[in-house]
């Protein structure tokens, strides 16, 4: 579904991510793990089209999307939940959700009731401004918003950041359920060990802007993960 070949990217003239190759198959949940500042977010932003690709290729569903604008990548069916959730603080919860409708223009919009099933709290707060929600609710809103557009691939950048542990568990359970129900492919960046272990089928480890290891879920032992995450 997603093939990234020899990708390099960064900010301005500074290369942060070098020669990265990854593949994500349909229906898979793949994680990219690594310490702070190794280039995980930069890499995801580049896939979404928010940073320019210096060299290499991004192939999504047999389409070369390396050089197209981010809004067109969304139209192709990539749903993105950025670090810090990226909700629109002065729009209501409902308006935030409606903004997701333009993702994957080939497919019909997902029924809102489906979204409320996974995230019932959102339904209670439809008319509330997103800026007044708690961190956990904002994460749910951001994920729900991406799901509204019926994406083929969901890109999550540290969804657990700044959220209390019991809500993290709830969100990862929900995402697993969504993956099972809708066959949604998920690629996520994460540092939370629990989250990684409970979700990932496979994981790439990143350090200094490059991929330094790849593991299947049965190899994702605590020691293994800690090895990549500790400084």
């Amino acid at each position: 579904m997603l093939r990234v070949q020899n990708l390099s990217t960064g900010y301005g003239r500074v290369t942060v991510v070098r020669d990265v190759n990854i593949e994500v198959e349909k229906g898979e949940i793949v994680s990219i793990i690594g310490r702070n500042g190794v280039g995980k977010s930069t890499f995801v932003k580049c896939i979404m089209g928010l940073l320019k690709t210096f060299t290499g290729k991004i192939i999504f569903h047999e389409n070369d999307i390396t050089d197209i604008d981010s809004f067109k990548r969304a139209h192709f069916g990539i749903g993105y939940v950025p670090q810090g959730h990226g909700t629109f603080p002065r729009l209501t919860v409902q308006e935030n959700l409606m903004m997701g409708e333009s993702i994957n223009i080939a497919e019909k919009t997902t029924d809102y009731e489906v979204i409320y099933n996974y995230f019932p709290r959102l339904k209670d707060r439809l008319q509330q401004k997103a800026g007044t929600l708690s961190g956990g609710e904002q994460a749910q809103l951001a994920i729900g918003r991406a799901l509204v557009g019926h994406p083929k691939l969901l890109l999550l950048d540290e969804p657990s950041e700044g959220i209390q542990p019991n809500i993290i568990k709830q969100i990862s359970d929900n995402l697993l359920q969504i993956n099972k129900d809708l066959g949604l492919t998920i690629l996520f960046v994460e540092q939370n060990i629990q989250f990684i272990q409970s979700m990932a089928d496979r994981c790439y480890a990143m350090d200094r802007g490059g991929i330094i290891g790849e593991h299947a879920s049965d190899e994702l032992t605590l020691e293994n993960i800690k090895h990549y995450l500790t400084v």
Partner: protein
Amino acid sequence: MEIFANLFNILYQFLDSFSFLILSAIGLAIIFGMMRIINLAHGEFMMLGAYITSACYLAGIPLLFAIILGAIGVGIFGLIIDRLVICHLYGRPLDSVVATWGISLIMTQGFLILLGATFEGPSTPLGSFVVGDRNYSVYRILLVFIAISLLIFMYWIFMHTKFGLKSRATMQNNEMASSLGTNTKRMNTITFMVGSMFAGLAGGLYAPTMAITPSFGSAFLMESFITVLVGGANPLIGTVVSGGALGVVNSGLSYLYGTFIGRVGLLIVAILFIRLWPFGFSGLIEKKMMRVK
């Protein structure tokens, strides 16, 4: 009876001042609020609207349609200016000030060279009526209703259409809106066009009440910028509240001490806001709304 006549006079002055502030600010407020572009050529966009309206009227088109053509004409002009100049300046407010100032100079001087110092405009339609011992213009009363209708129309565009939603989202977080499939460049272009149309419309509406000269826009410059400044970034809440408040200040002081003091009052309010509440009325109101819930 004399009390009634006096009260009516005060009310008329207030409404006239209110509609003038709203109409002169509305296009500027949209472009500044949604795009963070300060359009110093705003007055000249209004001037262009007045010229197009006058030219159409002279060509025999009824005034109403001439005004609408003025708005459309300035909208198209705004589209061209956006593609040529403004689109390169998104996210660079100071550069946009310099560029649009340049555009305003070119427009004023260009009109002076091409069309001379004055241009024949339509005369004020609809006549007048008498209350007490004073004459009042029916057209100016009509402008009040038009100003209010335009505010409602703008509210509808930005709060109840898909375009409005995307426009507000783009304003709050450009990258995120783009990642969700919104073509933010196109949103900005359309927003600039809509703002230009409102400016052109206001110019056309005031064309029958003023002399049509290349410096037509300068009559609106101070009022429009002060209204936007006092209103803050939100073109919906800000323009209404600040138009109302400044209308009271301007008409009250003008009634008591004359037009000059009325304008001085506006400037003093502007200075107070810059010092005390730099985000204007909409900043104050939004802060409150975020806290309540």
